């Protein structure tokens, strides 16, 4: 039974890898393998590369001083944070909000089988991120350290325990969000607030980590002894990787006990939460005077309602909406430091405009609202198709939502950047043009990606919001565009100067935005009207 359900679940997640939507045919085995290879390359190449460098710095000093356990403890902690961060936004909806809950529960399928399949999905999502951090560290240890046979086994076993711990943390958080949100009318906001608290914690740890690691490397023995005295269970976690039998048994037993407890609690509460529909008591209707709106405003309002109804959509599609103003405030507060740093590194503040343009593209990749918006229509698409609204009107509403959620917060970033950089009028104008054109290009590209990689057949909104090719393209495109900018500057731009290069890059961005605009208006509208 679990095998059947798993096949169904993974068939949905990796549908695009097996099935060609455009040709309505199955992909060849070779094409599927290429897709999976590219995915693995992306994960290992981008994230794994980063952690390899980090591990190289940390491993030799700790392992040579006889503190391999501390090295693995640190790596485990990072893996846990990354793994939980990767799955925190999806656990609640992955566990409880699948649209086929009622269907599956109505069939002779044991609840524990449905729950087990959902949990496997959560486990794999967290494990994927955790292993991306842990595995490079493990390989570095095998190369740099001098592991015994027992420590090789122990270190590999610890990787499994780390993925298990990530899973337990994610499930606990998903369960907490579920229990709290069933009591509130606006569940989505509860989930967003709780998840953002976790994200804030993540960033606090991230920013403090650099200092902590420097201090740790200088005082390995002292820190090691302190951890051993004050937090013996953590010491045991690290000792698992050194092949210590007692630590192995104790930590494994703890994990298994927690796992049994989690499964016991979840299996008792699953049906109640998964099938809960009422929220915050019944609201009695009172007729109020309604104001007429134009069809466009009605469509835009519908997009806002869709967006704000889903914590998953808000968190995954519009993190930049929070980060952009936060970055702007940071720049205003730290303007002297930023200005001094730019001047010290580059000798002129104009170069700062290019640096900040690249940083802005990085922040833009956090807003992918338009990318899943067409797929999210799902089975409700018939409504738009039967109403007297054109395809372009619908797409324009989706585009406008993206532009508002990115453009308005970007104003604060723009102000912060201009305050910190102290550009000339011409420089400020060029930077302003870049910000506006980059937002437009990004919104248009995301929408177009959502159209050409549309998927209306899903049973959990995680699929269009987090696991679709459209969103992957939307996430990567600003980063690749930033890389293109850096490449072009190094090749040609440095000969013409920062501001003339920014002017040329503005022209390129505007040109691309216009090109994608015409693609959306032409090909995009046709795709939408033929869905």
């Amino acid at each position, binding site marked *: 039974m679990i095998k059947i359900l798993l096949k169904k679940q993974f068939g949905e997640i990796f549908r695009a890898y097996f099935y060609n939507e455009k040709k309505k045919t199955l992909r060849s085995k070779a094409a599927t393998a290429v897709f999976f290879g590219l995915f693995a390359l992306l994960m290992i190449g981008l994230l794994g590369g980063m952690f390899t460098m980090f591990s190289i710095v940390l491993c030799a000093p700790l392992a040579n001083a006889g503190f391999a356990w501390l090295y693995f403890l640190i790596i485990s902690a990072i893996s846990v944070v990354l793994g939980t961060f990767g799955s925190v936004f999806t656990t609640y909806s992955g566990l409880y909000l699948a649209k086929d809950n009622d269907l599956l529960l109505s069939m002779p399928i044991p609840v524990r089988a449905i729950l087990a399949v959902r949990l496997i999905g959560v486990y794999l999502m967290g494990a994927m991120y955790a292993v991306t951090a842990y595995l490079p560290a493990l390989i570095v240890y095998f190369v740099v350290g001098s592991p015994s046979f027992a420590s090789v086994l122990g270190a590999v076993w610890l990787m499994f325990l780390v993925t298990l711990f990530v899973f337990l943390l994610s499930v606990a958080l998903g369960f907490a969000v579920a229990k709290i949100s069933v009591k509130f009318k606006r569940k989505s906001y509860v989930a967003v607030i709780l998840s953002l608290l976790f994200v804030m914690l993540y960033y606090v740890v991230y920013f403090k980590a650099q200092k902590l690691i420097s201090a740790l490397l200088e005082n390995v023995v002292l820190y090691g002894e302190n951890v051993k005295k004050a937090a013996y269970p953590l010491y045991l976690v690290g000792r698992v990787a050194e092949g210590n039998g007692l630590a192995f048994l104790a930590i494994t037993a703890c994990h298994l006990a927690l796992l049994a407890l989690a499964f016991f609690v979840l299996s008792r509460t699953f049906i109640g939460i998964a099938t809960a*529909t*009422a*929220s915050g008591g*019944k*609201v*009695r*209707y*009172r*007729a109020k*005077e*309604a*104001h*007429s*709106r*134009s*069809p466009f*405003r*009605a*469509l835009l*309002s*519908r997009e806002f*309602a*869709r967006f704000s*109804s*889903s914590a998953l959509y808000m968190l995954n599609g519009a993190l930049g909406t929070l980060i952009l103003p936060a970055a702007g405030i940071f720049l205003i507060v730290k303007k002297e430091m930023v200005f001094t740093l730019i001047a010290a590194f580059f000798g002129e503040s104009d170069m700062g405009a290019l640096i900040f343009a690249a940083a802005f593209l990085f922040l833009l990749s956090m807003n992918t609202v338009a990318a899943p918006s067409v797929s999210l229509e*799902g*089975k*409700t698409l*018939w*409504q738009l*198709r*039967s*109403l*007297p*609204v*054109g395809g372009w009107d619908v797409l324009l509403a989706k585009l406008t939502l993206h532009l508002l959620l990115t453009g308005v917060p970007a104003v604060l970033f723009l102000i912060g950047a201009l305050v910190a950089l102290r550009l000339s009028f011409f420089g400020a104008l060029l930077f302003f043009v870049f910000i506006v054109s980059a937002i437009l290009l990004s919104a248009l590209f995301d929408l177009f990606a959502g159209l050409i990689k549309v998927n209306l057949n899903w049973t959990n909104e995680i699929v269009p919001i987090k696991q679709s090719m459209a969103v992957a393209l939307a996430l990567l495109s600003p980063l690749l565009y930033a890389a293109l900018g850096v490449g072009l500057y190094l090749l040609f731009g440095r000969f013409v100067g920062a501001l003339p290069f920014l002017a040329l890059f503005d022209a390129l961005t505007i040109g691309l935005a216009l090109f994608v605009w015409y693609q959306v208006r032409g090909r995009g509208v046709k795709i939408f009207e*033929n869905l």
Partner: protein
Amino acid sequence: MLDIQHLTKCYGEKKAVDDLSLHIEKGEIYGFIGHNGAGKTTTLRSAVGIQSFDSGEIFINGISIKTNPLAAKTVLAYIPDNPDLYDFMSGVKYLNFIADIFGVPASVRAERIKRYADLFELTNDLSQPIFAYSHGMKQKLAIISAWLHAPKLIVMDEPFVGLDPKASHTLKGMMREVCDEGGAIFFSTHVLEVAEKLCDKVAIIKAGKLIRSGTMEEVRGDASLEQVFLDSEGAE
């Protein structure tokens, strides 16, 4: 009001609808009957512009759904067999959204929402989110939304499924009212008794082809509609 001319729609090699022609006049309730997979839903979806078709023409009040879909859609309303509505809206927000799209003035919409919601005993639930609605409540909401802009043509796919007897009775009355005011209704059903009592005309479709159509008397003759339907299906 609805003129379907030589409609053909294929899914790959299979012809779902094959050279089908129908003409529905103002004031008519037109029933559409056929077994599962006969092509009823495909015909209805093509008629309201939800899906494209391979050949033929469809005119709504003289306007081609193919060449001028937006103008054609302003005078019609459609209710599918399984109304997947916007779960993230409340009932009243959904109705206001539909009213905004069709440009129904605020005062008119308030009066209509009250009238139809009262008729279907849905008024007290209008502030509830749609995800908390039962199938029948969603069906009622879809019906209210269809009637909200006073369309000239209403196309419905199995509209009685999920409705309680009282709501079914109400809907029948509303259908007749639309036709008395010069509108037209085109709907599919498997409930032959309803078709027999309610429809002015009826059409039977089999494997994408229209096999009988006309007034109730023309189609059934001296037999019952059920007998005619079963005979057309080749049953005993």
